[in-house]
């Protein structure tokens, strides 16, 4: 490597530093706060960027054993897994129909899915709350299992249509000439080829429903029914006294499932993000 290219390379990294600090500092500061002792946390003359008086897990143990945090996490997991599973199945068959089959109304249904994909959840939460009441799911986590697919199905359908189009039609036709039915061809030929797409769909559906906030906040309220994000943002704040250490511990632990998935499937997140928008 010549000197000049090395210099530009170092310069590029230097230019990236402010972006990286902007992206990562909030997480660093949250982690730091959650590990600090109260004495240091509320000392206005202490340096807030480091831990000087030794770390403590006190906030975490308080969060786990003195609040309902574990119940909220369990609710989040239940809602997320069920909503994701149902949405990926419904989205897969809809995407297959849209990208492969010819039938009446296929185009208008495709447009309908796309329009639904763009409808923000904040447009519909008020009337949906009424619908949820009418079907008897008020203040129940099952209301979330039922309503999350409304934004997950359009998303997974849209994402998977892009992937199914990349599977050559001939592969499927070959199987059908050899006597397989269309469903067998889908199950044995198309889906295995589209596995990266399916992984993407599962990851994004999981992330979207784990991160969902406005529906969870509106449709559930009692401590046994709420999800992790709602629990941490509403139950840990009582009156005007904030327990910042516990609050930050809750925010960190509430993000752990997503961080784990993220670390293992980073490349899928990158490709799914661009596929969802660009394809």
């Amino acid at each position, binding site marked *: 490597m010549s000197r000049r290219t090395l210099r530009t390379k170092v310069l590029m*990294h230097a230019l990236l530093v402010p972006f990286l600090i902007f992206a990562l500092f909030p997480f660093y500061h949250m982690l730091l706060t959650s590990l600090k002792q109260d004495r240091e946390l509320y000392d206005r003359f202490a340096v807030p960027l480091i831990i000087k008086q030794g770390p403590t897990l006190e906030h975490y143990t308080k969060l786990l054993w003195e609040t309902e945090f574990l119940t909220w996490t369990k609710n989040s997991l239940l809602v997320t897994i069920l909503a994701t599973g149902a949405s990926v199945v419904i989205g897969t068959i809809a995407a297959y129909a849209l990208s492969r089959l010819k039938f009446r109304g296929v185009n208008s249904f495709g447009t309908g899915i796309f329009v639904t994909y763009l409808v923000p959840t904040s447009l519909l939460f008020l009337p949906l709350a009424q619908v949820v009441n009418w079907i008897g799911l008020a203040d129940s986590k099952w209301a979330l299992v039922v309503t999350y697919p409304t934004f997950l199905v359009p998303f997974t359908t849209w994402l998977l249509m892009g992937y199914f189009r990349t599977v050559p039609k001939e592969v499927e036709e070959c199987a059908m000439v050899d006597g397989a039915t269309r469903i067998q061809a889908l199950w044995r030929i198309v889906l295995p080829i589209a596995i990266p797409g399916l992984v993407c769909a599962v990851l994004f559906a999981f992330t979207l429903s784990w991160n969902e906030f406005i529906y969870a906040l509106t449709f559930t309220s009692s401590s046994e029914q709420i999800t992790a994000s709602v629990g941490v943002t509403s139950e840990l704040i009582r009156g005007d006294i904030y327990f910042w250490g516990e609050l930050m511990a809750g925010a960190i632990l509430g993000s752990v499932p997503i961080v784990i998935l993220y670390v293992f499937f980073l490349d899928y997140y990158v490709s799914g993000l661009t596929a969802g928008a660009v394809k």
Partner: protein
Amino acid sequence: MAIGTLPTTAERARLPWRTRVREMLDRERVLGPLFITPALILIMLLVAYPFCVAVYFSVSNSFIGRPSHFIGLTNFIRLWDADAFRQTFQNAFVFTGISVAFKLVLGISLALLLNQQLWFKRMIRGAVLLPWVIPTALSTLGWWWMFNSLYSVVNWTGIAMGIMDPPGPNWLGQRYYAMAAVITVNIWRGLPFFAITILAGLVAIPKELYEAAQADGAGPGSRFWYVTLPMLKPVLAIVVLFSTIFTFSDFNIVYVLTHGGPINSTHLFATYSRMIGLESGRIGEGAAISLYLFPLLMFVVWAQLRFVRKQVF
């Protein structure tokens, strides 16, 4: 049934039902509608129907737990005359305009940097994308703490660097600072989407175009202006349209950070509609507020279908 001839109707009726079902399922005209039925039912019951309910609420004087009457466009007109709603309306445009502009400019810069030869490429991308995957409600709590009036680490750093006079601004308690704070968090959370998507657009630009431009004597500046930007246009259009609709309808950041305050100065349609519709119980008015989002949604859908996705279906 002889080999090579199709079964006649009479023969077909005699086939066992399982075979007949299998045969039916092999027909696109049957399988297609069957496959979209679950999604269709879901959208009809939980998207289209609630939307109609919203429209009905918005033209009625609905109040939680009380019978309602048709009152025409009164809700929309009354809202338009109220200062708090006007403020919300203005906030939504300021918030969206500034956030999207920053995300676009910073997103292009970041994408150009990420497109260079880098060490630890994967780790850097992972770090850049992180704010986008973490639950927004939870990461906004972190920002809430960073903007705390007594212990703000932002102010501490500003004072330590000599940029701010102690004690520094009370971020969430003063109107313009509060708006700046919610915009900052929105940029923080939305920048990864811009950067990574634009990066995908950059990677797709054929190298030959740059080589040709260079052969014609174009410097880095004009190469960016005459090659990169025009080639990125479709991607930029999609990203901006997407981001506009989701920034406009944002809820989480404002709800957690400021709750719309101080004195409505950061309310957006979603947070204001929740306050009026649920916290004050005036569902009719609340529904009317969120329906003000609808024209914008229609515009974005129209623009996407008209200019961006011409060739999709």
